[in-house]
């Protein structure tokens, strides 16, 4: 079997809670993290709503899975690309999103931001470099 590391991208385009896509994506990302691939997550269209801070699902009696995004760094999932245009269309800025960080082992475990704000054109370029897509 080939030991070659592939570039995996998980594409998140749905809002949380209204459908199961967002949660399913997160589950697959965590499972996939066991395979030591080069993982990126893309948040675009309504997918940017997944990262909004202050989610509280008590009154809708659903599981609030948003704290799980904070664990991604511990699984070496450290590249969360968030599309600027999608945020702007929805009246959001980076300030509205949860702060997500990871510790960089190649840089004396310095704490760094996992969220990388990119333009639509940059997102297209990043997608163009991938080997495999998982679409949610």
């Amino acid at each position, binding site marked *: 079997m080939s030991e070659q590391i592939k570039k995996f991208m998980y594409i998140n*385009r*749905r*809002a*949380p*809670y*209204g*459908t199961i896509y967002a949660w399913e994506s997160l589950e697959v990302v965590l499972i996939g993290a066991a395979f030591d691939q080069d993982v990126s997550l893309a948040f675009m*269209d*309504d997918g940017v*709503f997944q990262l*909004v*801070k*202050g*989610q*509280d*699902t*008590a*009154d*809708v009696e*659903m599981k*609030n899975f*948003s704290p799980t995004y904070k664990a991604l760094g511990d699984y070496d999932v450290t590249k969360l690309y968030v599309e600027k245009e999608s945020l*702007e*269309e*929805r*009246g959001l800025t980076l300030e*509205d999103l949860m702060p997500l960080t990871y510790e960089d082992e190649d840089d004396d475990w310095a704490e760094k931001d996992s969220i990388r704000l990119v333009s639509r054109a940059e997102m297209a370029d990043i997608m163009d470099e991938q080997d495999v897509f998982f679409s949610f």
Partner: protein
Amino acid sequence: MATLHTVNKSPFEKSSLDSCLAYVKDGGSVLMYEDAIYGAIKGTAYAEKVAAKGNVNFFVLGADLKARGVSEDKVIDGIEIVDYAKFVALAAENDNVQAWV
């Protein structure tokens, strides 16, 4: 006839809210819940379409705002935030309910 229109899909992803707004009559009511609450937020690319419907009564379900981390001060002025009991009351008060699923 007074009709309560309910919408539960994001206006950024589906055309349900667009269609609802095209059919709702002056004096009618629209309740946004689940992912449709994103249509009730100020400053989005969709907000003006809701604001343009000045003669429609808009409601949004508070529990779905809270679940999605949307604070009440982000809701477009004039949209009433309601709980599940008010949702039921609206359904009962109106002559008919049309669900734009």
